[in-house]
């Protein structure tokens, strides 16, 4: 089975043709560099993504703090991870880079704060 993909590794946007053979092997053409071939093999077996969201803050100058994953996780884990993110809240102050959830769902990625929220002044 042949499928056409646009490589999203860099802005060059190579059009890749992946030929998926009956034994599961994948032959790739059209890639301008080796990263394209590697990307498509990952993409076909277990694509990885990062996501951003926000977490509730108690006692802060703002209601929420923005968060993201520290490294890509398998796409299939995104919704379960969102459920975990929705469950937590943090108490101000929060600093950029703070780990909000360590190794979320054993994915190897942390949920980290990407902005700072000061404590609300009395």
């Amino acid at each position: 089975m042949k499928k056409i993909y646009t490589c999203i590794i860099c802005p060059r946007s190579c059009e890749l043709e992946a030929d998926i053979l009956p034994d599961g092997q994948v032959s790739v053409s059209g890639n301008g560099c080796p990263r394209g071939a590697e990307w498509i093999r990952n993409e076909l077996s277990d694509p990885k993504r990062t996501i951003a969201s926000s977490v509730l803050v108690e006692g802060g100058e703002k209601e929420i703090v923005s968060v993201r994953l520290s490294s890509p996780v398998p796409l299939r884990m995104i919704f379960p991870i969102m459920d975990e993110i929705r469950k937590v809240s943090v108490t101000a102050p929060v600093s950029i880079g703070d780990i909000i959830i360590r190794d979320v769902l054993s994915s190897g990625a942390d949920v980290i704060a990407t902005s700072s929220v000061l404590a609300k002044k009395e």
Partner: protein
Amino acid sequence: MENRGIVVIGAGPTGLAAAVKLRRLGAEDVLVIERENETGGILRQCIHDGFGLERFGKSISGPEYAALLKSEAEELDIECLTGTSVLEISKDRTITAASPSGVVEIHAEAIIAAAGCRERSRGSIMIPGERPAGVYTAGTAQAYMNLYNRMPGRNAVILGSGDIGLIMARRLTLEGAKVSAVFELQDHPNGLERNIVQCLDDYSIPLYLSHTVTEIHGKDRIEGVTVSAVDGNLKPIEGTEKYYPCDTLILSVGLIPDNTILENAGVEIDPVTNGAVVDEHLMTSVPGIFSAGNMLHVHDLADFASAEAEAAAENAFLYASGKLDTGRNLSVVPGEGVSHTVPGRITGHGPFTVSLRVRKKERGKTVEVRQGGKILGYRFFPLVIPSQMISVDAEAAAGCENVEVIVR
């Protein structure tokens, strides 16, 4: 009236990068004026990652990019007037601004205008129908969710395939809303392929090209939209109407700079980009007023806007020291296949780089910078697409003939 050195208007990825560069070059008096109460500009609400690969060598989110720039500015003791809106700039570089302490007047030796751009709204694309609540630009929906913790709605339709619209399709989906579809008037997506894959395909959100919203329905809150296919001239095709129920319509239909302030200062404006016409030093038609970033022309990446800011800073610094060669005045004209160029004119004194967007997607094309029969520079591209800004280096132009940029 206060006399200051170089004043930067806007504290986003362009303005802060310009200010930091100015101080590093040795400029002693640098003042940044920012309308919002915090620095960072649009980066503050762009919580997705993909920023910083060029400037910081790693993929980070918008707020992190803003924080890194802010700490660079703080280390260099850069003064920033926040909560201050520029009302007027005069031809002699006197800035009138509304600040928390009242109206201030500042005279600058040089100005870098870096106030970013605005989103096209429903008014700019004239969608017929009723005027209910629930119609947002993508950036407004993004601010609601990422800054103020408010869901814009539960069942959205997105018009336009700009990057922020695609990013919001994913964000809404992850937060539990349904996104029925994204409709794009053109026959090609407007956003990065990377975002089509990661924001739509991953979540099975369909993208319909050559389609547009032809009517908005709903009395108080939007209840649905009529969508039609369009022909080659972008006109809706009768009989193709389809109704989509929704409680939210998100518009991601393009960005455009608002340069009223520069226009009032007498700066010549490019009717295509709506930004200032600048020379290769990024100086506008009013000496000492420079422009960069999305206020000059809409960029694809914040990193590129920051890089352009550094070039503007170098030249503004030279100008303020009386060392900038302003030279002659040759026009750079977009020719066959080119929608616009920056710069729009050049001094002819040295080599220069042209940034441009092409009119249509084409394969295996060369972009040429020509003056009469002479080729000043060219570059081959395996693929050119309108949604990607490209650049070509060129050698100095001689004489007084205009320079033309073409795709061939």
